[in-house]
């Protein structure tokens, strides 16, 4: 048995590199874990009580849970004497199911009882490496680490049981949270304190399962958070309340780039419930005893803004980008086209919000962020406190889609709390959210092909104007749109079936999903009168391959999408139903962009403000979605964003098939098809 101490192990691991670096990633002393545990206030602990009859509620202060005893083999797992297995979820859960899939990988190698898993959201901590939840990389980037973390814990539990029984570890087996040797059985809970006293074994001796023996990975699990989602007990940052907390809103400039010149707070301060009004970076903050009072106070503010970028308009931005795209002209053998995608908003159902409490000696931030390390840097910088005294807590998140990679709203909450000397909940209305987004860039994609060789050239140009950021699938969205629509234009000119054209040039894995989607959709088979199929395939970030076929008709001038058939190859599948759900959601997200999504600007002002003028797809418009997984033994490669890119071009190509007019601009407008 290994006699290395944990410290030695970490030291050895860092020095030797290679797979042992993995050991360093998960190597963590119990002291380090308990330190992070103490500050990790469980969101549930801050839930306001439901008041009794006839009472008014006073939210209680957040309780700091006592560190519980338990076996903490690494930063990801705590096994408690009661048999529960706490997973320290190191990435942000925003609907993509990462709490569930991370738990499945750990539970698989640990041989845990699935029902014993509990989730605690991990703090921002270098022990987890990069915690940015973006690029659909939570699983691909953590799979090996998590497997080793689970297997290490399992091995130590086996060693503890073998010691107890006086047998060799090789005589023991594990199953559903128990170690067995013949008729002898000990639960993980019974072994937790013995295992906690053992040294963490070396990386090289950690045996991972043969994937053929997996019993959890590859089975469909519902989201582990579902029970709290359906009864309203899930606590998002929006739902938190701290003792003495004020509700804060900020008046932002109505014009892009505008700044406060002066403001009169007297009418706002006179609103019942308004307690403080002061200037902050980018606007004026109103703090009140309720969200409603804060909003009324903001309405009453009188602010003089600087002119900002009042010169900006969609047309001026389009003109500038058009000048950079040079059309060279077509002849009998060449075809060229430019594909246009507008600015798009994220429109997460939970608008940007953040709870912050800056005190003399510490700063706590409950941030629904995809980038807790950036949030920590921002909070550290604004609070002026040492990094070690700044604590980022990440609750469940009501949708991210890339918006929450930005820390603008975190910065606002920390500044407001610091200036107010109170805990605050910063609230963004939907209007704040739509008008202060980091938009998907307005982009032009140029394509040119020679018909005899089918050689395609491409280039892309992004507009400058509004602030932009990552939007679910980022550049893959306009790329897939331009590439797939152009392929259909080339196919039409060359007289080749769009499916056949693609199969000639695609990689083996792309061919696999395209063929499967075509089979399942009945590509080439007769459809009802007035219906047409459109096809698209895309490999998002080059790693996950998705083909979609949309069945579309046009009824009374309206595009109707009846069915989307989808095939996906994301390598090894952790949670099949999770993959299906992400494809379904990606398709609906892609449909909103295909049919409605468009942010426009006039006189420097964003023209959209809420769901009445920034429309999202509704249930009535949702098609039948038929998802098929093509499982391959490639490494798991991510699914959160990959369903989005093929949807708009699949619909556009069906519209092209129906009308004969190619679609070169989103959202698709029948009267704008060129």
């Amino acid at each position: 048995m290994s006699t290395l101490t944990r410290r030695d192990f970490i030291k050895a691991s860092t020095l030797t590199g290679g797979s042992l670096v993995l050991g360093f990633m998960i190597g963590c002393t119990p002291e380090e874990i308990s330190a992070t545990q103490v500050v990790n206030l469980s969101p549930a602990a801050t839930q306001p009580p439901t008041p009794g009859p006839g009472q008014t509620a006073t939210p209680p202060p957040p309780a700091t849970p006592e560190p519980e005893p338990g076996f903490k083999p690494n930063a990801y797992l705590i096994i408690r004497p009661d048999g529960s297995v706490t997973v320290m979820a190191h990435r942000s859960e925003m609907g993509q199911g990462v709490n569930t899939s991370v738990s499945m990988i750990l539970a698989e190698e640990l041989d845990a009882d699935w029902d014993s898993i509990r989730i605690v959201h991990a703090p921002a901590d270098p022990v987890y490496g990069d915690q940015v939840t973006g690029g659909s990389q939570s699983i691909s980037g953590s799979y090996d680490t998590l497997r080793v973390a689970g297997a290490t814990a399992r091995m130590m539990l086996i060693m503890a049981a073998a010691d107890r029984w006086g047998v060799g570890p090789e005589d023991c087996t594990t199953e559903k949270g128990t170690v067995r040797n013949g008729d002898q059985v000990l639960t993980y809970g019974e072994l937790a304190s013995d295992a906690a006293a053992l040294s963490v074994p070396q990386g090289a001796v950690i045996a991972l399962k043969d994937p053929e023996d997996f019993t959890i990975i590859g089975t469909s699990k519902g989201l582990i958070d579902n029970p709290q989602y359906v009864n309203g007990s899930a606590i998002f940052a929006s739902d938190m309340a701290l003792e003495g907390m004020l509700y804060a809103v900020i008046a932002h400039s109505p014009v892009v780039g505008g700044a406060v010149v002066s403001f009169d707070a007297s009418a706002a301060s006179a609103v019942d419930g308004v307690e403080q009004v002061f200037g902050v970076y980018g606007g004026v903050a109103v703090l009140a005893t309720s969200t409603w009072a804060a909003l009324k106070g903001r309405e009453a503010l009188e602010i003089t803004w600087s002119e900002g970028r009042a010169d900006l308009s969609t047309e001026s931005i389009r003109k500038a980008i058009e000048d950079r795209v040079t059309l060279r002209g077509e002849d009998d053998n060449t075809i060229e086209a430019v594909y246009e995608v507008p600015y798009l908003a994220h429109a997460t159902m939970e608008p940007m919000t953040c709870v912050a409490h800056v005190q003399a000696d510490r700063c706590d931030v409950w941030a629904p962020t995809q980038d807790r390390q950036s949030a920590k840097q921002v909070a550290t910088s604004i609070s002026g406190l040492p990094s070690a005294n700044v604590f980022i807590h990440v609750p469940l998140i009501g949708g991210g889609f890339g918006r929450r990679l930005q820390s603008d709203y975190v910065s606002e909450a920390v500044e407001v709390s610091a200036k107010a000397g109170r805990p605050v909940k910063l609230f963004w209305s939907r209007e704040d959210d739509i008008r202060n987004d980091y938009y998907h860039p307005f982009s032009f994609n140029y394509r040119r092909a020679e018909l005899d060789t089918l050689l395609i050239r491409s280039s892309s140009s992004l507009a400058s104007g509004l602030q932009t950021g990552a939007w679910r699938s980022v550049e893959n969205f306009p790329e897939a749109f331009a590439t797939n629509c152009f392929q259909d234009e080339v196919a039409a000119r060359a007289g080749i079936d769009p499916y056949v054209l693609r199969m000639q040039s695609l990689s083996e894995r792309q061919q696999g999903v395209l063929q499967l989607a075509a089979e399942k959709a009945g590509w080439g088979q007769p459809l009802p009168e007035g219906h047409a199929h459109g096809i698209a395939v895309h490999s998002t970030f080059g790693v996950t391959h998705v083909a979609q076929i949309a069945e579309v008709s046009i009824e009374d001038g309206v595009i109707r999408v009846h069915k989307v058939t989808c095939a996906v190859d994301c390598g090894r599948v952790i949670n099949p139903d999770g993959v299906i759900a992400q494809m379904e959601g990606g398709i609906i997200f892609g449909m909103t962009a295909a049919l409605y999504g468009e942010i426009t600007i006039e006189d420097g002002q964003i023209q959209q403000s809420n769901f009445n003028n920034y429309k999202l797809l509704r249930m009535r418009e949702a098609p039948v979605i038929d998802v098929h997984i093509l499982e391959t033994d490639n490494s798991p490669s991510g699914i959160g964003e990959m369903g989005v890119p093929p949807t708009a071009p699949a619909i556009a190509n069906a519209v092209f098939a129906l009308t004969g007019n190619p679609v070169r601009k989103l959202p698709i407008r029948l009267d704008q098809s060129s």
Partner: protein
Amino acid sequence: MERITLSINRQTYTVDVDPNSPLLWVLRDQLGLTGTKYSCGIGQCGACTVHVDGNAQRSCLISVEDAADSEITTIEGLDSPIGQALQRAWVDLNVPQCGYCQPGQIMAGAALLEENPTPTDDDIDEAMQHNLCRCGTYQRIRAAIHAVAEGAEA
């Protein structure tokens, strides 16, 4: 500020409040009933759906004063057999993704099934048209409502 008495989830609450405040903010900020969500504030998304005398209503559009004479049910008090069956179906069919809109979806679905125990797809689309889901769980919501309707029939 006025003292207003509300009947919520079969309990009586008295609150000091601006009578014009939407019911939504009183539920969330004063009574701690945070299962009812804000997302648009203009009756476009349904995240704030509650039952007012049994009908699905947007609590962002109802003033607390107007709610005073009605029996309000929020997701926290949805304990009817249909409500419970919907919550189970939502879990069984793995409907939620981010989960933020789902209390409102379930409240809308429950009001529909109380009135129409065997809805068609069109009935469901009609009843659910006020509820948005950015994660795109519409197919599963429809399937879960059907599953409860069929379960009640069997």
